[in-house]
């Protein structure tokens, strides 16, 4: 594996290899000294074009626990604000010879584009509304830890599917692990054609009881107000909120965070033992350790920068 650009690039075996490695790193996290020297002397560059505390700090912690050097490049206050293009920023930062670049941008396909411009291993930490592969991996890890196996599980992904890179990566990853995936939300927030990914589409929670796992997505308030995707958050909550009345005791609840309490989730379910939300955050570090380890450990063969295409 040269890069982690899309969950599409990982078959079931590769996903299992990464989550198994993550489980080994989880043992390290329980020790008094949480660090291993696996990536000593390697440099991981976090390049984030979008605000992100969780994902960025999770990657930072993962790299540090592997003893890698970490450089955080935040876009605000940088040359990017002076009009530098993505390409020039990447070429400039590549001059420091990072071994891996963890990239988050608001643009679909940016990680793949960057992988053609530099020799570093690229980890897609979210490209627009396209993909968020490490989130999918940590969700698979969390679920496997909790359920034992994912095969045959029914997973309902609830909410704003249209604007969610998490939804897209998870639909693919959960199915690859043998689960049946249903997406449910208001018709304005379910993109036309999403069923081509193999999932079932529903518009109500009427049969939520059939789900083994309920995966709620974050409602992005700022987005809802500007273009009237839903008439009101109040109505949204009354139809789609996962609360104590809707969630049955045998189901588990997941959410990529940050949670809007009282909108997509009621307070009592967030705090219930069924919620895996903090386990997901914890899994984030070990899974990202496994990803960086997979990409960077072992015999280091310098990656050639690909030839430019005929253009």
């Amino acid at each position, binding site marked *: 594996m040269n890069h982690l650009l899309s969950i599409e690039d990982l078959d079931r075996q590769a996903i299992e290899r990464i989550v198994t490695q993550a489980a080994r790193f989880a043992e390290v996290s329980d020790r008094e000294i949480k660090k291993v020297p696996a990536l000593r002397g390697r440099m991981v560059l976090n390049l984030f074009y979008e605000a992100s505390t969780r994902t960025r700090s999770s990657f930072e912690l993962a790299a540090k626990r592997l003893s890698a050097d970490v450089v955080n490049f935040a876009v605000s206050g940088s040359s990017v604000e002076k009009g530098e293009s993505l390409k020039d920023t990447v070429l400039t930062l590549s001059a420091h010879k990072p071994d891996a670049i963890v990239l988050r941008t608001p*643009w*679909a*396909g940016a990680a793949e*584009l960057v992988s053609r411009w530099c020799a570093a291993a690229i980890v897609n930490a979210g490209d*627009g509304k396209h993909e968020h592969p490490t989130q999918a991996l940590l969700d698979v890890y969390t679920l496997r830890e909790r359920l034992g196996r994912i095969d045959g599980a029914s997973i309902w992904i609830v909410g704003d599917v249209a604007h*969610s890179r998490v939804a897209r990566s998870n639909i693919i990853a959960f199915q690859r692990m043998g689960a049946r995936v249903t997406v449910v939300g208001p018709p304005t927030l379910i993109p*036309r*054609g999403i069923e081509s990914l193999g999932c079932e589409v529903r518009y109500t929670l009427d049969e939520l009881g059939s789900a083994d796992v309920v995966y709620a997505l974050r409602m992005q308030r700022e987005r809802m107000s500007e273009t009237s995707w839903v008439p009101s958050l109040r109505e949204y909550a009354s139809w789609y909120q996962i609360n104590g009345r809707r969630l049955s005791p045998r189901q588990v609840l997941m959410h990529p965070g940050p949670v809007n309490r009282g909108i997509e989730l009621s307070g009592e379910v967030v705090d219930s033992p069924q919620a895996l939300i903090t386990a997901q955050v914890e899994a984030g570090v070990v899974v990202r350790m496994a990803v960086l380890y997979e990409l960077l450990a072992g015999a280091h063969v310098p990656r050639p920068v690909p030839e430019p295409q*005929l*253009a």
Partner: protein
Amino acid sequence: MAASSLIHGPHAPAELLLRDVHALDPRAGIDARHDVLVREGHIAALGEPGALAEPEGIEIVEGNGRHLLPAFVDPHVHLRTPGQEHKEDLETGTRAAAAGGFGAVIAMPNTDPVVDSAPLLGSLRDAAAREARVPVGFLAAITRGLGGEELTEMAELREHGALGFTDDGRPVQSAGMLRKALQYQRLCGGVISLHEEDPTLSHGGSMREGAVSAALGIAGVPAVSESTMVARDAELAMYEGARVHFQHLSCAASVGAVARAKVAGGKVSAEVTPHHLLLTDESVRGLDTRMKMNPPLAGADDRQALIAGLREGTIDCVATDHAPHAREEKEVPFEQAPMGTTGLETAFAALYTGLVLTGELELGLLVERMTAGAALFELPTPTIAAGEPASLTLIDLDAEYLAGERGWESRSENCCFAGQRLHGRVLLTLAAGAVVYRERVFSVVAA
């Protein structure tokens, strides 16, 4: 009203004998091997191979049975002058046209500033008289600054040579505004050429809505954003008795709307681009920005409907919508990239390879559709007949190559067909009586 016309740079009238070419011009009823004599820029004589006397000192072009076609006419190109000469200009754009076998092109007014006043149009025509390698016609804007709110001085623009009007790049969103332009056409004439898109439906989209956009998480432009506007404007045009042309149709529903308007007697015509005829939204999966254009690439069913529409005549002509963009503008993430692909240099070869060789379209019909744009804009149609001005292109249909392997004549390289294996190489183009393009042949000769 002054005659609207094409304009080109200084030319020396051609003197040529094209020997043993396969002349093909369905309108002239010609499809056989001929010698074609060009004198003083006109077709002086056509004869059986070897039948024409060889005037002394004249240049001979050996055809060896290669195809001689009427030069193509493109009613929709972006030459980017004035204001965006880093993408293209009159010289490079018309050079690209010549290299693609085109003998005339019609330039869109969405430049910077917009071509919405007679003085600007005048200076543009003056520049074309110095720089344009093939004849260029200009459309002026329908509304000032493409703002959609005030009509341009259409009558004056017509007097100063506007072939017609368009807000291309944008729709005329207000039906009331468009209606006024259609009414005013009674005074000044000139085809009104329409880019159809409902911005409230296409809002924010970077590709066609469907399974691929859903998988990529990219906001999609639904096909109805185009077809509802085609239907609306066809009705408006019929109500006003106006003559309208629908640009770059991209979906089956639009073809249906045009067909219904034609049956109802509307004075409507339509064009389709090579990329919509040959590619689908599947090509967007790799997020190559050369595949980002407006209207976006559509689904396979839409593509089939466009091919059928072109074959049956619902769609009158091929237009490239040649839309050059600089490398730095296109070398960005897909959603940030500007829309458009270049097309002049690949149009014929791409369509010949993708539709003629696959048996979906006859060569003669392709030639007809690639020249039909002229008559739609009241321009003379290039014709292979004695006495006609020489507007011709000689093509080696058997030549096989990778698009772009020798670089481009256009200043920009954002071609959606780049790197594809194509058949059909333009060897020679004559436009308005002059040789405007010769295939570059490099050979090493000992000193």
